[in-house]
C-alpha cells in the first residue's frame, strides 16, 4: 500500500441484525485531502465513518486506517485520529476546560502538556473566556466548537467530522467552515459527512455519494457536476397540463431533465445552449443557473423524502 493513502476500504459491509447498513463499498482516501461522504438520511454514511474511527465493528471486508487494520490495531488508530461525533457527547458534569483535560487523560497525554494544548485550542476556537463555564450553559455553536477542540487535542493525523454543521445557525456554520479551511491549509486529512451540498462543493477535494449502503459515485465535485449534469441548469415552473407537452419538446431537442413536482430542471450539456430551452418553454418563471452538487445528489439519490 502506498504511503499517501489515509484510508483503504475493500468490500466493506455492516449489518445490524438483518438490516444491511453498508453494502460492500470500496474506497481510498488520500492523506491531505478533504473528503466528503454525502447521502440522504439512513444512507449508511455515518455507519461507514463509525467503522473508520473504530466505534462500530466491521461485519465483513477490509478497512485500513493509516495502514493499520481496524480489527486489530484500533487502539493505535484511535490515538492517531480525531473524531467530532454528531452528538457532541460533551460531559455535562464538567466545565469547558475540564472537558478537554479529561478527554486528554483518556489519550494518556501528560497533564502539563494537556493544559498547554487545551489552552491553545480554546484560544483557537474562541472559547477561552468560557473555560470555566459548565458546558450546559453553552450555545449550540460553542458546544460544537468545543467538540472540535476536543477532537484535536491529540494532534490527530486524520480528523473525522460527522455532520459538523447540522443544527447550527448560519454565522456558526460559516465560522466552522472557515476553520476547516484553516485545517485544510495545514494539510490535515479531513473526512466529513454533510447534508449541505454547497459547502461540500466548496470544501471537499473529493466526495462520495452514498445511498442504500452503496457508493453511487466518487470524484471531484467539479468533475461530477460536469459529467453528470452539464454546464448549466435551466429551471422552470409549469403546471400538470403543460408539463408533458414541454417535456416532449425538450426530448425532441435532446435535452436531459429532472422533474420535481411542477419544477423542471433541464441539464444543459457542454455542446448545448441554455438559451435554446428558454426559447422552447413559454414560462415566465424560468431562469438559467450554474449547476451544483445538489443537482448531482438529486439526480443520483432521487428526491423522495427519506425517513430514518
Amino acid at each position: 500500500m502506498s504511503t499517501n493513502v489515509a484510508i483503504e476500504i475493500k468490500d466493506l459491509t455492516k449489518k445490524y441484525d438483518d438490516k444491511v447498513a453498508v453494502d460492500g463499498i470500496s474506497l481510498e482516501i488520500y492523506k491531505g485531502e478533504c473528503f466528503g461522504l454525502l447521502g440522504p438520511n439512513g444512507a449508511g454514511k455515518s455507519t461507514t465513518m463509525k467503522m473508520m474511527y473504530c466505534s462500530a465493528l466491521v461485519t465483513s471486508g477490509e478497512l485500513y486506517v493509516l495502514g493499520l487494520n481496524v480489527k486489530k490495531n484500533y487502539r493505535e488508530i484511535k490515538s492517531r485520529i480525531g473524531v467530532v461525533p454528531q452528538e457532541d457527547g460533551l460531559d455535562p458534569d464538567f466545565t469547558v476546560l475540564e472537558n478537554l483535560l479529561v478527554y486528554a487523560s483518556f489519550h494518556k497525554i501528560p497533564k502539563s502538556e494537556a493544559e498547554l494544548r487545551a489552552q491553545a485550542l480554546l484560544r483557537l476556537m474562541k472559547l477561552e473566556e468560557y473555560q470555566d463555564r459548565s458546558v450546559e450553559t453553552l450555545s449550540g455553536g460553542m458546544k460544537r466548537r468545543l467538540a472540535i477542540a476536543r477532537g484535536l487535542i491529540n494532534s490527530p493525523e486524520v480528523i473525522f467530522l460527522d455532520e459538523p454543521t447540522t443544527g447550527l445557525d448560519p454565522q456558526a456554520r460559516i465560522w466552522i467552515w472557515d476553520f476547516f479551511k484553516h485545517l485544510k491549509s495545514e494539510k490535515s486529512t479531513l473526512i466529513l459527512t454533510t447534508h449541505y451540498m454547497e459547502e461540500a462543493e466548496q470544501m471537499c477535494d473529493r466526495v462520495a455519494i452514498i445511498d442504500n449502503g452503496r457508493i453511487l459515485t466518487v470524484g471531484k465535485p467539479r468533475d461530477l457536476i460536469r459529467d453528470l449534469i452539464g454546464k448549466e441548469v435551466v429551471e422552470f415552473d409549469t403546471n400538470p397540463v403543460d408539463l408533458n407537452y414541454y417535456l416532449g419538446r425538450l426530448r425532441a431537442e435532446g435535452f436531459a431533465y429532472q422533474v420535481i413536482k411542477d419544477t423542471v430542471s433541464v441539464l444543459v450539456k457542454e455542446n448545448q445552449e441554455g438559451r435554446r430551452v428558454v426559447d422552447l418553454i413559454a414560462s415566465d418563471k424560468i431562469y438559467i443557473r450554474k449547476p451544483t452538487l445538489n443537482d448531482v445528489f438529486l439526480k443520483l439519490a432521487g428526491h423522495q423524502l427519506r425517513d430514518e
Partner: protein
Amino acid sequence: MKFKDYFSRPKVNSGAFQVWSRNFLYFKKTWLVSLFWIVLEPVIYLGAIGFGLGAFVNNMGGMSYIEFFFPALLSTTAMMVAFFEGTYGNYTKLTHQKTYATIMLTRVGPEEIVAGELLWAASKGFFGVLGVTVVALFFGLIDSYRIILALPILFLLSALFSCIGMIFTSFARNYDSFIYSTSGLIVPMSLLSGTYFPLEQLPVGLRYIAYLSPLTHAVSAVREILHKGPTLWVLIHVLILLLATWVCMNISFFRIRKKLLK
C-alpha cells in the same frame, strides 16, 4: 456467554484508572454535599432503629441491639450506595450523557470503561462505609481495631453490588426499569438478610433463601469479625462473596461490552 467465561479474567489496562479518575474528579467537586446525603440516611437508621427501637430490645444473643444492628447498617450502606451508582449513575453515562461513547473515541476501550466504572461504584460505596464509620466513632460504637478487618469485606460487598448494578444497567430500558430491581431485590434483601433481626426468626424455607442473598453473608461476616474476630466462618462468607463478585463482574463485562461495541 460460555460457562467458563463466567470465571475468566478480563484483559484490562491502565485506561481503567483514567475512567475511575474522571468520576473521582467529579466527586471531588461535590464530595462534602454528596457524602452528607450518602451518610445521612444510614445515620437516621442508626438513630431510629438502632437507638430508638433498639431501646426496647434487651438481649440479642449476648449483645445489645445496637451491636447487633451496626454491622448490618455498614453492609446495607455499602450495598445501597454501590448499587445506586451502578444503576442510575452508570445508566445516565451509558445513555443520556453518552459518556461511554465519547470515551470510546479515545484509546480507552470498553473493558477499561467497565473496569473503571465498577471500581468507581465500589469506591463510592466504600466512601459511604467510611462516612458511617466516622459517625459511629462519635457515638462510641466502635471500640475495637477489628473494624479495620471488616473494611475490606465491606469493600468487597460494594464491588459485588456495583457489578450487580451494572448488570441491571445493561438490561434497563429506561430509569423506571430500576424500580423493579430496587423494590424486588434490594429492599427485601436489606430487610431479610439477618439485618434487623436474626435469621433464626425467619420461617425455615425463607431462611434458606436468605442464604442466597449476598448481603446475608456480608452481614454475618462483619458481625462475626466485629464481635469474635476472624474465624473460619468469616473466611467461608468472604469466599462466597468473592465467587459471586467474580461471576457478576464477568457478566457485566460481557453485557456492557456487547452494548458498547456494535
